[in-house]
């Protein structure tokens, strides 16, 4: 049980607005690690994450999350999903937002204080979310997912627009969660973030073009820079 992958996607096909966004995609994500889902904007990252969260209508294929089908009540208890846009209530304070999400997942005030400390917002508890910057809102959204201490985190571009110091801090937080045995799937369109992951899924036009550790990527492509490695893989794939 424990050695089975946290996420298993098999033959997943998703069609949105007449376009095949994910054509027959198969991939798995190991437990207790930070897996980066990296690729250009529009390549299907969010759609894949939505399918794993169980809120995407799929054409065919199966999505297994923590040994059960995605989106069931059991799966929802164990999954923390952070959408790309900061999905918290702008007309509530940080504390009111977190109290609500805590009540939904059965967590307490201690969890709230730990979560805001982890995202560096402890001094903003009484601020209205509408008055916060975009980066701060993203962190409130992330804090809401931390509350229930889920087994699996699905984080859709959580570090967009953050300053480098905060970005580093959040990646350290992700690594710490993984070292506690949690599984994180973190999407990003920034190649240099791939280097911070235990494992990288490079995605392009709805397909996974590489599934490897950052070192393996550098080795197979002969490029030290991951941006260039992506180019080599993307063009190699296009030629074949």
């Amino acid at each position, binding site marked *: 049980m424990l050695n089975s992958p946290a996420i298993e996607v098999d033959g997943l096909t998703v069609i949105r607005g007449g376009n095949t966004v994910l054509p027959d995609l198969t991939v798995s994500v190991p437990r207790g690690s930070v897996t980066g889902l990296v690729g250009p904007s529009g390549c299907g990252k969010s759609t894949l994450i939505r399918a794993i969260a169980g809120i995407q209508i799929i054409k065919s294929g199966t999505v297994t999350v923590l040994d059960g089908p995605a989106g069931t009540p059991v799966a929802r208890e164990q999954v923390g999903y952070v959408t790309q846009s900061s999905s918290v209530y702008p007309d509530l304070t940080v504390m009111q937002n977190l109290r609500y999400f805590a009540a939904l997942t*059965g967590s307490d005030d201690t969890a709230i204080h730990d979560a805001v400390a982890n995202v560096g917002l402890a001094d903003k508890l009484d601020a209205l979310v509408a008055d916060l910057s975009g980066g701060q809102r993203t962190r409130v959204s992330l804090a809401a997912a931390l509350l229930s201490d889920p087994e699996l985190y699905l984080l859709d571009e959580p570090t967009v627009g953050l300053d480098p110091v905060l970005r580093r801090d959040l990646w350290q937080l992700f690594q710490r969660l993984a070292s506690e045995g949690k599984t994180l799937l973190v999407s990003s369109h920034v190649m240099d973030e791939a280097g911070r992951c235990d494992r990288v899924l490079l995605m392009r036009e709805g397909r996974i073009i590489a599934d490897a550790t950052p070192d393996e990527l550098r080795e197979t492509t002969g490029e030290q820079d991951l941006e260039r490695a992506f180019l080599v893989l993307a063009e190699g794939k296009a030629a074949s």
Partner: protein
Amino acid sequence: MTRTLATTRRVLQQLSHDPRSIAMIVVLPSLLLWLFKYVFDGSPVVFNRVGPQMLGIFPFIVMFLVTSVTMVRERTSGTLERLLTTPLRRGELILGYGLAFGAAALAQSVVTSTVAIWLLDMDVNTPWAIVLFAVTDAVLGTALGLLMSAFAVTEFQAVQFMPLVVIPQLLLCGLLAPRDSMPDVLRMLSDVLPLSYAADAFTELGSTSDFTSTLTRDLVILIGCCVLALTGASLTLRRRTP
């Protein structure tokens, strides 16, 4: 139940950060009623006949609008999507909304009825029954707003459902013309529209001081419609979207 009440508290907290909306919800029906009374200053009989029905119709319209726009906003902001990935059940979300706006409706009805009866001298015998029906109508507006919001993609569309859902019911409910004088097809249509029973109840409340069996029937039908609409709303709320 915890998650339902947490949702109710959250919706009320959102409202509390918006004092202008609170003022509109609480005061607007009274102002409209006051306007109505003095427009018909020359013929007070009109105010006494139609006034009580207004007490039931205003909360219905206001709550329909407020709820459908709020729900569409929840959908477009991405918070609904997020809620659907938590252990929150769809019925709990819908019921939480219903309770929150029901509480707002209670405040509205108490204020409006007080103004109508004591300041505008509306002639009714059972103020508590007026409030009871006004709240039921408001909850009905909320329930239909939640249901219709499933079919609106933007706030713009949600607002336009108001004339679609509300105006035909206003025309057919017996407020403007007695339902018995309508062509058969329209009368049958009015028989299945919930606002007809609200209007019927307020007509009854204007003329009697007892809680008659007609009132009991109207109340049961209205509550039944609320339950139906709320059930419909939680069923049309899709967890998986394209």
